[in-house]
């Protein structure tokens, strides 16, 4: 293979004609220009070749027995996988009607028999440039999309589970705005967790040590939240706010919140035991869960109040959340607190306490 041929061997042309002399003639001219050529003697085998090994360009005869060039062209152009392959219709017919039929079938260009070398090469090269530009643009578009998705994934990954971050990034790729059309007033399940015994912890530990302990604590709680696809809304001091049913609907949001609470308590137990052994401190997670409409407002405030009331290893639930998850809780672990008027609230709400941990409340 000469130098020019080697440089362009990757460009593959499929020549389709029922006349073997025409096929050999066209193949010869293209190979002389350094292109790689495959051939087919009828429409049916041309379609098969394209499906098994798509070429970069097709020279397609129109008048063939069986499946005509128009039919082959129409079929390939209607299939997303092959629509971008440039097709040059080669025909002895020079009448307008054939060209119109060719255009309707989706042909990219035409070449009349007798085929003139200069014309053939000029058309093939032009289409090749166009095809390569199109492929380049497509690969740039794909690269930009990947970059954009990665940026979205990074932006969200601090707050939501990797699964949800992927979902948002994918939705962003498809629709532009991943939250487009979402109802602004969503029914939210809010879970508030904080560390019982935190004040004593701050009194007895240096800032550096405290930071390490808090990191350990938040890592455990965040893992539990991600496990059940919760969204981290806020992390301040020793408290963590996790939302469910946002940003994507979760019909089992209450159950997810409940399982997250159990997991938070269970995962933190060995950490608390280690701290107790090391510092002699009794600590534990207190959790409040409530549900209601809107992201900021009532459910979050109530969950925060419930959390403040919860002892270490205890989960306090508002009535509607308890109703949703009561089938998951052993009745002996539940203590109905009756209707409680929470600080800053005028209406009393039913509150249930569930002991989640295996240790006694601190």
């Amino acid at each position, binding site marked *: 293979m000469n130098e020019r041929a080697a440089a362009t061997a990757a460009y593959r042309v499929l020549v389709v004609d029922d006349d073997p*002399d025409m096929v050999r003639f066209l193949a010869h001219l293209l190979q002389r220009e350094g292109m790689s050529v495959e051939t087919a003697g009828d429409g049916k085998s041309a379609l098969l070749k394209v499906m098994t090994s798509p070429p970069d360009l097709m020279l397609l005869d129109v008048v063939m027995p069986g499946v005509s060039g128009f039919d082959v062209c129409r079929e390939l152009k209607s299939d997303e996988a092959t629509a971008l392959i440039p097709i040059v219709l080669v025909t002895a017919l020079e009448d307008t009607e054939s060209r119109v039929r060719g255009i309707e079938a989706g042909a990219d260009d035409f070449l009349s028999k007798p085929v003139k070398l200069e014309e053939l090469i000029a058309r093939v090269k032009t289409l090749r440039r166009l095809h390569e530009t199109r492929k380049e643009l497509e690969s740039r578009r794909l690269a930009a999309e990947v970059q954009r998705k990665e940026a979205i994934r990074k932006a969200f990954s601090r707050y939501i589970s990797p699964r949800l971050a992927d979902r948002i990034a994918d939705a962003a790729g498809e629709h532009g705005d991943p939250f487009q059309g979402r109802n602004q007033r969503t029914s939210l399940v809010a879970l508030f967790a904080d560390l019982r015994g935190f004040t004593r912890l701050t009194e007895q530990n240096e800032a550096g040590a405290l930071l390490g302990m808090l990191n350990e604590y938040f890592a455990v709680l965040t893992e539990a939240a991600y496990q059940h696809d919760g969204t981290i809304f806020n992390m301040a001091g020793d408290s963590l706010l996790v939302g469910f049913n946002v940003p994507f609907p979760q019909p089992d949001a209450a159950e997810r919140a409940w399982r997250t609470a159990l997991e938070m308590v269970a995962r933190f137990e060995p950490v608390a035991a280690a701290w107790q052994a090391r510092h002699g401190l009794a600590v534990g997670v207190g959790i409040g869960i409530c549900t209601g409409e809107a992201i900021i407002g009532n459910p979050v405030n109530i969950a925060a109040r419930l959390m403040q009331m919860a002892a270490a290893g205890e989960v306090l639930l508002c009535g509607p959340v308890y109703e949703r998850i009561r089938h998951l809780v052993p009745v002996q672990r539940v203590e109905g607190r009756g209707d409680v008027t929470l600080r800053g609230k005028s209406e009393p709400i039913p509150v249930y306490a569930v002991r989640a941990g295996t240790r006694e409340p601190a």
Partner: protein
Amino acid sequence: MTDHQLTVTIAKDLADLIPMFFENRKKEIASLRTALAAGDFEQLRQLGHRMKGVGNSYGFAAISEIGKRVEDGARAADRAGINACLGEYADYLSRVQVVYE
């Protein structure tokens, strides 16, 4: 009968293709005769159409020109006209000289 030029100049790099090209033209004559004997004008039309496309591409204008007349004759079901074309075609193929440059 058209006075066809009997010496045809062809690009040197097509030389390898020419022997096979002429082999196929001989087969073509046989196919044309069979189709004419059977009165298969559709077959004659297709063969004429093919001659029209391939002849000139290789540089043999006479073959394209005879092919066009065969195609037109087949459309008109003109047996005598096609028969004359076939004689002319056979004569041309037996006498044509190829020069490569």
